[in-house]
């Protein structure tokens, strides 16, 4: 590989020492509104066409995995909320379930169902934030106001349930810390009652909007084969035509009780990823509607000690977070602190597909492609 001209500019497999007359290398971010945080992208352009890219990440690195080794199992739980901070409930669910698997503790059915409801509401909230900002990036100013209106209702439910809107720390290892509040069912039902019509409203703004279709169809195509090789998961994988969802493949929480479909796309482009996420919101609503009708009674916390000492060993557990497979690999040495916690962040691995998706497109499409992967830098960098 050739020596690169400047210290940081480095495109694997590409000679950047000699640039053609129309070639240019530009820097995008980390202070750029469309990068959804502090992503920095180096773009190698030929005219306005992208012929190579490099993502530079780590600006938000806080060493979460190192911190985990110095906290007890319970103490570490709030930290996971700060990775994907727009879907904190999902992060918490994955961590709690992984530790429960390590401890071999059974969670009471009531806790499982409440967890499922809150996690699906979180998925809707996360997708709403994605939709609003993604449309905003592409130039549709209106949807974000509608999306935030509905997201606010979900955050209010979280706030009433556990006192926090974003970094919720809603669950505890073994079940739930809090019983649901009086009127929880009514609040959730009221939100769900007309949410499908709200989704129709968003779709009316975008799905057949000629500008939206022009800006998203055929942009950032990722084939199923590439997606699997790159380890891509979540809506991005499903939009490429792979029907795979951990809620069905390895059912956790209470997902095995409910009927829902896994939406898939066929073209693997930005438009399909948009359609998949829209349909996922409808399916999440469907799961919540079934769950809220029938919350079992009983205890909310399983048999866990105040001091948690899992037997030495290891476990890998993953859940279908809004952005893809969120996995926790935890190694126990038999003490109260985990020996090692590895977090498999969906955003980090999905972002690796960015280069494949962006090549051959225009600079304006880069913004659409960053948005369509739906990354959260807190999770990419950890």
């Amino acid at each position, binding site marked *: 590989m050739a020596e690169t001209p400047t210290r940081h500019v480095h495109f694997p497999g590409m000679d950047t020492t000699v640039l053609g007359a129309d070639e240019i290398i530009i820097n995008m971010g980390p202070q750029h509104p469309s990068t959804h945080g502090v992503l920095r992208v180096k773009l190698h352009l030929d005219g306005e066409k992208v012929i190579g890219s490099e993502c530079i990440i780590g600006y938000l690195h806080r060493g979460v995995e190192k911190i985990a080794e110095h906290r007890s199992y319970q103490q570490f739980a709030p930290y996971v909320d700060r990775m994907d901070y727009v879907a904190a409930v999902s992060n918490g669910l994955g961590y709690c379930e992984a530790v429960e698997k390590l401890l*071999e503790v059974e969670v009471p059915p009531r806790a499982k169902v409440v967890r499922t409801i809150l996690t699906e509401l979180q998925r809707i909230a996360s997708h709403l934030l994605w939709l609003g900002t993604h449309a905003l990036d592409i130039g549709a100013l209106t949807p974000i106001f509608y999306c935030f209106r509905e997201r606010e209702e979900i955050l209010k439910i979280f706030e009433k349930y556990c006192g926090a809107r974003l970094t919720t720390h809603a669950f505890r290892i073994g079940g739930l810390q809090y019983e649901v509040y009086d009127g929880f069912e009514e609040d959730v039902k009221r939100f769900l009652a007309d949410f499908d019509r709200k989704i129709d409203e968003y779709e009316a703004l975008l799905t057949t909007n000629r500008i939206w279709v022009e800006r998203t169809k055929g942009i950032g195509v990722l084939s199923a084969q590439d997606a699997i090789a*790159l380890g891509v998961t979540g809506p991005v994988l499903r939009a490429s035509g792979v029907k795979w969802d951990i809620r069905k493949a390895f059912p956790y929480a209470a997902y095995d009780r409910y009927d829902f479909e896994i939406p898939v796309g066929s073209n693997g482009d930005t438009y399909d990823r948009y359609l998949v996420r829209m349909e996922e919101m409808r399916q999440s609503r469907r799961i919540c509607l079934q769950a809220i009708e029938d919350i079992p009674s009983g205890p909310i916390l399983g048999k866990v000690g105040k001091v948690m000492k899992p037997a030495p060993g290891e476990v*890998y557990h993953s859940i279908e977070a809004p952005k893809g497979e969120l996995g926790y690999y935890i190694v126990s040495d038999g003490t109260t602190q985990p020996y090692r916690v590895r977090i498999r962040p969906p955003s980090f691995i999905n972002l690796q597909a960015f280069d494949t998706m962006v090549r051959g497109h225009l600079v304006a499409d880069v913004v659409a492609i960053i948005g369509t992967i739906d990354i959260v830098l807190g999770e990419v960098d950890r």
Partner: protein
Amino acid sequence: MADEPTSKQPEKRPETSEGQPPARETSAQKPAEKPAGEKPVPPKKEAPPAWPKPLDNEMVRRFRQRFGDAILDALEDRKQAILVVAAERLREIAEYARDEEQFDMLTDLTAVDWPKREKRFDLVVNLYSFPRNERLRLKAAVGEHDQPPSLAPVWAAANWLERECFDMFGIRFEGHPDLRRILLPDEWVGHPLRKDYDILQQDTAWVRENLGIESGQ
């Protein structure tokens, strides 16, 4: 730091027993009552460690047949399959797992540091098979100066994962197309997820030079 929870436990115990007298007392009384009754033996539940168990199934036999001594052990931990393999042959084994055993997706690749062992790192590779809906974990012991083969030619996903592993542990993967740090700055000295890297430690020279502050803490 590491002592924190253990030093707190003795202090906390009296609090919890005050706060929750029924639960604590009954659990303390039970073993005392039972020996006085009929069965003195059952409460003594000093079961042997449940995990890991040896694993032996069709797939393990196929791996053993194909790679012989390179499959060092087959274990099951919390009902999850683990193959302990020789690091030198990791790529071959990974290729076989992908092509013949249908483990088509690399879910995760990471390491665990065990500084007291002869080979200090455990390389941990989590695989998933779409057709079989199964997971498999490959583990390989890697010494501090060993260079395990890169899996990037087998799964494109390994590229960034191995870079992160190099960044955090300092494991050099042989044949990686672009082995550089990924989360920390290129010039950073040290590999933070090693056990001998203290949680408060940092590359002070880098911080001073690049951020213009004395400490990032």
